[in-house]
C-alpha cells in the first residue's frame, strides 16, 4: 500500500476484555515495529519484527501483550485482560531494512481507551 495502515483508528473497550490491533506495513518492508504512546510522552518501544520473527520483544510490558506477524507482512498486537493503564495510542512503523538504520514510516496509530 501507499503507507502504513492501522486499524481500527479508535477502539474503546471495557476493562478485562481482549483486543486486537492490526498493522499493514508498506509492501516489501521486512522490518516492523510497535510502539505505545501516552499523552505528552514519546513513543515507547514494544516489539520489533524482522520478517516473521520477533527479533526484540523486550518492550512488551507483561504477558498480557503479544504480537504476531505470521506471513511477514500484516502484524497483530493482542492485549488480553485489558486494564485502564493500557489506554494509549499504539503506533506501528515499518522500514525497508533490518533495524531502524533506515527511515521508518509510521501509521496514524490506534487510540485504545479502556473504560
Amino acid at each position, binding site marked *: 500500500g501507499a503507507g502504513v495502515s492501522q486499524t481500527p483508528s479508535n477502539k474503546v473497550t471495557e476493562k478485562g476484555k481482549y483486543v486486537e490491533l492490526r498493522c499493514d506495513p508498506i509492501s516489501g518492508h521486512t522490518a516492523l*515495529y510497535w*510502539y505505545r*504512546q501516552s*499523552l*505528552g*510522552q*514519546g*513513543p*515507547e*518501544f514494544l516489539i*520489533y519484527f*524482522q520478517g516473521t520473527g520477533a*527479533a*526484540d520483544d*523486550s*518492550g512488551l510490558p507483561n504477558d498480557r501483550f503479544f504480537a504476531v506477524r505470521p506471513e511477514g507482512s500484516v502484524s497483530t498486537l493482542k492485549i488480553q485482560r485489558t486494564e485502564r493503564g493500557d489506554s494509549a*495510542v499504539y*503506533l506501528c*512503523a515499518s522500514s525497508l531494512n*533490518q*533495524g*531502524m*538504520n*533506515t*527511515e*521508518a*514510516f*509510521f*501509521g*496514524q*496509530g490506534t487510540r485504545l481507551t479502556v473504560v
Partner: protein
Amino acid sequence: SQQGEEDPQALSIQEGENATMNCSYKTSINNLQWYRQNSGRGLVHLILIRSNEREKHSGRLRVTLDTSKKSSSLLITASRAADTASYFCALFYTGGFKTIFGAGTRLFVKA
C-alpha cells in the same frame, strides 16, 4: 536510561524566527533520527544522521551530531506556523534492534 533527553520541553517563537531543539544521550549510538508529530498521531521522519556524520541538511532543517558530547541539535530556520508540532529525537543504539524515543519538544510557532 537509554532514552534521549530533549530540551527545551516546549518552545514558543514568532513566525520567521529560527527554532533550535537539543537532544542528549548516554551510550553509543549507531544513528540518531528526528521525527515530527502533529496532533499526537503518526510520526513523520525528518532526518537520519549516522554516528560518523557531523551535520546534515534537508530544506530548512539542519541537524548536527557531536558524539564526543553525546548530543544532537535540530535547527529549523525561518519557521512557519505549519511547523507547530512535537519534535522527537530517536536513538538507534549500537548492537541493538530498537529505536528509543525521547519525550519530545513541543514547538509552537505564532503567526
